[in-house]
């Protein structure tokens, strides 16, 4: 019952926080996008090969591009108030449907990337901290710095060359073996195989971040009195590390996960390009290029939703990990 009330409070706070933020994002980006040279009609006319003035005018009218910007914004907002993200001029279908198609694959990719980043990062960081100052620490520190310093697309291309072209172990791109008609376990395995390389490329940068954060946090925690208490109890090092150090060290490490989700979505633009992954990042990039602004706004909106949700989850996770935290 207490838990329920806590949850409710979190949700209410999230909503109160989210609404102005999201409104801000919409308005800011809407106005920003209207500064862009060219509009959807230009792009479509160009892509279709040719056009006449009449069709251009007709396109603009149909997409609602022929009225003043402020009016367009109001129209968009009133659409939004009715939970509609509008239509994509380019695809001729509702934005929500378009995003809905891409969302699952992006969520999976991001989820796996985050899982890799956390798992590997925390392991790496703990290993570094436990060997602080000695050669494994120095070596891993350099490795994580390199992860941190190498452009993501470079890693992506190199992984493809190595693992799919040279070794032939993993597919070079896409999210599934198209038309293979796999079902059940084989299907899941196939999806996983397709996900490993892009998720890794996306994750490595964050592996480095979490590794470094964890290292600092573990060192900090390891010097705490209660760790000494645990040692004085006669606990073996592994138990001390897992039960007393890592769990406490997780607290500062997880704080940034929400913000990183936004970063990962941005990074997804590059990785999805390299791996031909049909995700939101690529959709967003193309919608910028094609001036398909309803789609772009939809993606931005959704991603801020995701970030807000992630932040809420992190808060809840904190409350669970750290009993001292009262949910604000």
């Amino acid at each position, binding site marked *: 019952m207490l838990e329920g009330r806590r949850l409710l409070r979190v949700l209410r706070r999230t909503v109160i926080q989210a609404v102005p933020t999201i409104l801000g994002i919409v308005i800011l980006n809407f106005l920003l996008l209207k500064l862009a040279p060219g509009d959807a009609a230009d792009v479509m006319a160009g892509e279709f090969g040719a056009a006449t003035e009449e069709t251009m005018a007709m396109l603009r009218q149909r997409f609602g591009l022929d009225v003043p910007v402020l009016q367009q914004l109001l129209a968009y907002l009133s659409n939004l108030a009715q939970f509609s993200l509008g239509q994509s001029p380019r695809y001729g279908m509702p934005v929500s449907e378009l995003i809905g198609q891409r969302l699952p694959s992006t969520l999976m990719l991001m989820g796996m990337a985050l899982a890799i980043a956390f798992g590997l990062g925390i392991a790496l960081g703990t290993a570094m901290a436990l060997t602080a100052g000695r050669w494994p620490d120095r070596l891993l520190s350099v490795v994580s710095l390199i992860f941190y310093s190498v452009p993501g697309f470079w890693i992506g291309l190199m992984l493809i060359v190595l693992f799919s072209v040279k070794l032939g172990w993993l597919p070079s791109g896409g999210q599934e073996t198209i038309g293979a008609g796999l079902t059940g376990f084989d299907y899941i395995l196939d999806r996983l195989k397709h996900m490993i390389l892009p998720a890794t490329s996306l994750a490595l940068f964050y592996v480095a971040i979490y590794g470094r954060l964890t290292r600092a946090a573990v060192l900090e925690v390891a010097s705490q009195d*209660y760790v000494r208490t645990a040692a004085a*109890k*006669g*606990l073996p090092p592994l138990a001390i590390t897992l039960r007393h150090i890592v769990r*406490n060290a997780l607290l500062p490490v997880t704080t940034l996960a929400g913000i990183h989700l936004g970063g990962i979505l941005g990074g997804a633009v590059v990785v999805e390009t390299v791996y031909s992954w049909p995700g939101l990042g690529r959709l967003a990039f193309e919608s910028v290029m094609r001036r398909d602004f309803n789609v772009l706004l939809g993606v931005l909106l959704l991603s801020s939703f995701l970030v807000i949700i992630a932040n809420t989850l992190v808060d809840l996770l904190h409350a669970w990990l750290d009993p001292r935290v009262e949910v604000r």
Partner: protein
Amino acid sequence: MTAPLLDVSNLTIRFPTGTPVADLGFAVGEGETVAVVGESGSGKSLTALAIMRLLPRTARTTSGGIRFQGRDLLALPEPEMRRVRGRKIAMIFQEPMTSLNPVLTIGKQIAEVLRLHEGLSSEAARKRSIQLLDLVRVADPHLRVDDFPHRLSGGMRQRAMIAMAVACGPKLLIADEPTTALDVTIQAQVLDLLDRLRRELGMALVLITHDLGIVGQWADRVVVMYAGRGAEEADATRLLDDPLHPYTRGLLAASPRLDARLHYTAGPLREIPGSIASALGEPGCPFVPRCPMALPTCRTKPPPLEEIRPGRLIACPPTLALERADAAAVGR
């Protein structure tokens, strides 16, 4: 005379940056309470950690022998040593606020040691934890057992620490400044509790403190440390009545005395001039820079702890000379 429970001899702890404990020796008998007294920085806490073998990695314990129940702890392999920690020798720390893991319940933290050393099931360990909390006089132990540390007061937390420490019935409990962080009113309660447990469980107690005021009531014997060396060792009452080492005398004059009724005895508090830091790099007696009676010979080499009379040792050649002169005079 049987061998003491714990015998620390010639203990020296070195760090790359210095030698905070040198040539220290003292012994603790079964069931005895020994207070180790000194200012902060005197090396008393490091000594306690050295006994537990929990010194930081950079520390080197050299030329010392720490014999516990006849075995040299310094020579034990680490897994063996782990079986000593928490089971044979337990330790409680100064800061009950930070010495408990904030993300685990009290009960889990007590149960951890029981499950480790006594192989209890989690259920049995929980039951025992409640009993232990009861033993250390925590009210409503069956409720508190599920509380997280931050929900408890400082005194309660220290009681929980004590419950954890005595869980496996250790032969020796090292209490490192157990009351420093607590309200004055709680201090006596906690010390009484320790004393009672010592008697009931038949364990020895090493009470590390900077506060000579608590020594008289709760300690059998006192070791006074200064700058990592033993300065004086004596029965508690003797020492308080008749401190010999100039440092002990200064310390005693500077400390508020806590009598049985928890009242401060009024008396002027006097500072010892200088600070312990001035001992650094001193080739001779570390107390020389602050000593009112230092002789030129004091500066040449550190004075050894010498027995004046049975059970009474002192590391101060001038005092020793005076005392011996007095004794000779009395004897004559």
